[in-house]
């Protein structure tokens, strides 16, 4: 039905099934061309408007009044509107966006370098830079701030970005945006700040956004104090916000590991598209020691899933919503499979004299160093004691503990916290089907007090039958 009139402006056209009968177009039309219909549309239950376009001048005002994207639209030229079907007019493609390819990371070799002398949080900050992190978001909180302060100084020199967020809540959401854009970014925080980030971390896990969170744990609960504690292990391992969440939790115990594990954290975060949590105590954050730089640094690529704001990635979506229960269950199953793979592939532990140990001390972070000193002291006296130091707190490295467990007469969990590390051990053993764990003894302190070498020695000595 080709029109013979010269057409200036198209007149409106409506598929009645896409009309919600709001009537906004009726009052918009200066020519009274539109009125409410009388017939209920069987597919929608609405009563769509009817158009009588005899006097219509194509002003388009009705088009701008219709809230529906595919409601009133300009009539296409040269088609028989009576026979027009949505499929022919609207197309079937969801999006015309291209399919993006991943741009891989590049490992850039570094020359051999002199040992550096760095404070723990600084070592981690340097690790972040070497891992290709150029974006930092954070809110000051002792005892984590020095890491942030160093990055505030260094990142701009590399044309990176340091943003002091308005809160930890804002921080995690900036990381969500920047990580969602496919970039390596991180924050330093401490316990109260970490609590505030948990909703956002749950969103990140649900949306599969990578990011690195360094929690320099301090004494709690509440405002507590700024002394060293390990009271956030349960949050990091079991409490990452709502939902079925998990993330790799890394626990460095030397300035060297502060650097190395921060670098690893970025790789793991992008490998699994999941946040990674580093936990240390405040003592370690402040501890200065020697740090050997790695033989490479990372020049990051760009993952294919990023919402980067460019042509290649236009079709992407960062989102944790799955309205249908079936879809959300499927998504959870996908996440659980990911966690299983992490449990299988990423357990890491450091074993010290565990081969023949009758007594196995389990400790992480700074308490593990006190414990290592104690093991050395006890070994010098002939006590068969070893140290099992989980480097990943989640997944707890239970596989490596299985053999020491068979020989040990007892375990001694040394922690600056009330059984949070012990609970991880017990849960992991239980999940691994280990029936009889030897009795678990404790050397624990709370509130900013660290277990000391001598009391560990004394505890093991008493257990081992008083050999002095």
């Amino acid at each position, binding site marked *: 039905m080709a029109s013979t009139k010269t057409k200036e402006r198209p007149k409106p056209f409506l598929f009645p099934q*896409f009309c919600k009968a709001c009537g906004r177009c009726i009052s918009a039309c200066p020519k009274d061309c539109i009125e409410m219909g009388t017939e209920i549309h069987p597919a929608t239950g609405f009563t769509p408007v009817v158009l009588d376009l005899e006097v219509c001048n194509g002003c388009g005002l009705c088009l701008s009044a219709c809230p529906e994207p595919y409601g009133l639209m300009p009539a296409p030229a040269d088609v028989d509107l009576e026979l027009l079907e949505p499929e022919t007019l609207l197309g079937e493609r969801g999006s015309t966006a291209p399919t993006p390819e991943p741009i891989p990371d590049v490992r850039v070799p570094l020359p051999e370098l002199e040992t550096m002398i760095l404070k723990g949080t600084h070592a981690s900050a340097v690790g972040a830079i070497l891992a290709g992190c150029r974006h930092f978001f954070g809110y000051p909180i002792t005892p984590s701030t020095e890491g942030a302060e160093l990055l505030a100084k260094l990142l701009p020199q590399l044309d990176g970005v340091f943003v002091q967020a308005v809160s930890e809540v804002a921080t995690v959401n900036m990381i969500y945006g920047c990580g969602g854009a496919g970039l390596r970014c991180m924050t330093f925080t401490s316990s109260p700040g970490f609590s505030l980030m948990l909703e956002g971390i749950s969103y990140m896990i649900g949306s599969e956004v990578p990011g690195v969170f360094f929690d320099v744990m301090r004494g709690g609960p509440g405002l507590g104090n700024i002394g060293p504690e390990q009271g956030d292990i349960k949050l990091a391992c079991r409490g990452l916000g709502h939902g079925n969440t998990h993330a790799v939790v890394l626990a460095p115990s030397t300035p060297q590991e502060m650097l190395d594990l921060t670098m690893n954290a970025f790789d793991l975060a992008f490998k699994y598209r999941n946040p990674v949590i580093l936990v240390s105590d405040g003592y370690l954050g402040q501890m200065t020691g020697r740090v050997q730089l790695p033989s490479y640094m990372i020049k990051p690529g760009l993952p294919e899933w990023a919402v980067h704001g460019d042509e290649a990635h236009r079709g992407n979506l960062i989102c944790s919503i799955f309205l249908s229960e079936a879809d959300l269950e499927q998504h959870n199953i996908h996440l659980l499979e990911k966690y299983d793979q992490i449990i299988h592939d990423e357990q890491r532990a450091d074993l010290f004299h565990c081969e023949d140990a009758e007594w196995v001390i389990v400790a992480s972070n700074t308490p593990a160093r006190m414990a290592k000193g104690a093991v050395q002291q006890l070994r010098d006296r002939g006590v068969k004691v070893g140290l099992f130091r989980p480097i990943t707190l989640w997944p707890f490295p239970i596989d490596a503990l299985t053999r020491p467990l068979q020989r040990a007469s007892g375990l001694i969990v040394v922690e600056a916290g009330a059984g949070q590390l012990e609970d991880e051990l017990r849960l992991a053993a239980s999940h691994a089907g280990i029936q009889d764990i030897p009795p678990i003894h404790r050397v624990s302190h709370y509130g900013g007090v660290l277990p000391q*070498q001598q009391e560990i020695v004394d505890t093991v000595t008493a257990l081992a039958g008083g050999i002095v």
Partner: protein
Amino acid sequence: MSSVFFERFERHAHGEGLKGHSTHYCPGCGHGLIHKYLAEAIAELGVQDRTVAISPVGCSVFLYYYLDVGNTQAAHGRAPAVAIGHKVANPNAIVVAYQGDGDLASIGLAEIMQACQIGLPMTFIFINNAVYGMTGGQMAPTTLAGMKTTTTPTGRTRLTGEPLKMAEIIGAMDGPVYVERCALFDNKQRVRAQKAIKKALRLQVEDKGLSFVEILSECPTHWKLTPAEAEKWVKEKMVPIFPLGVKKDLEAETERWFNLDPPQFDSARVLDVIGAVSRAPARFGEAFPSHIDAKDVAIKFAGAGGDGAQTIAMLTTRTAINEGFDSTHIPSYGPESRGGTSYADVHIATGEVLSPASPQPHILVAFNPPSLEKFGPHVQPGGIIIYDSSVVPTPPELDPNVQMVGVPCAQIAKQLGKVMVKNVVALGAMQAATNLFPRESFLATIRDALQKQSALLALNEEAFACGGTAYEEATNGTGA
């Protein structure tokens, strides 16, 4: 019809049936119109590929069903923070945050204030419908006085506050370049809203700065009005409280906002910035100070804040590491570090420092009576204590197996012209007393630390030397 809408809304219930082409909004809802204007503006400015739309939590949570652009769905109220993350990640991205009144003006107030305070070129579309639509019509910060909602069943009272006027608040801030409030209730208002949204986006495309457009938007469902009545209600009830119009427009006088260079990944540059060097420091000692301990020497430096205990602890650790050993330094921790005692634990080990705390040190350097009293009794038998005798005239009686040497550090430093260097005097005394590492080794570390303050070098070297001499004098050159 704008091409920026997906041809089919596959994210809307998998695009099945009518959902593939209709929105989830109630009839007459303002959100749909604003989506349309936003889609048109993106298309007209030619920025579809660069756009990142941030969906809020609220009825418009599903913005990503409809707009064929990069999409991120944010937590309730946090869209401005997410937007900042996206914008600094890629300054070339056109970032649009779309938020309701509960989202932006209640739970997310801090985030929107920060975004507007910074003023990065971004576009904020604020939908004021005076209620919480999504959760079923509760009071919003923008609910009118006296207005009934499910949480103000008898009408909004003084106890629940007056409506928050965001456009005026944001308009009063320095960050944004352009702030306007529009409405949708008739053709004229709709044209204005279309123009405002397009301008807000254009100002970002031109890198001018942050724009904020508030739109009074109908929620017929929770207002319990027909769509026609809802339009009228905006005009008659909302507009008097929320006056329409431009609140701020600095377009004419604003230059390009910023131009971020892409981050650098050149390895030489990176190593330079982090301070890595490939030169090995000179070594002066031959062996581990095993005359103090076979494997692990523990030292404690203690004084009041400002005594400089941390500095010499750090110098000691650096010296030890330069000599090829493992060493750690931990500063005192907790409230003591504010004005009270400040102490530092240092370990030096042949292999690896195990426990880094020094509860029973071999060496104690004490700058005042409280530190000497607190830590003196824990020094290991055979150990040594250096204390500042100008501050501690009468030292306590301690284990006779511990050598006690008083050196008038503060007094010497004063004579040298700067009390500040009393810690270096103490370090010199400690070196002489323990021969932990050769004198030259400590001096090399001091020189290294003062690289950028060479004016202070001579003074520090002298202080170090005087410390050594003073120790010899205090012990009459016998070393005991």
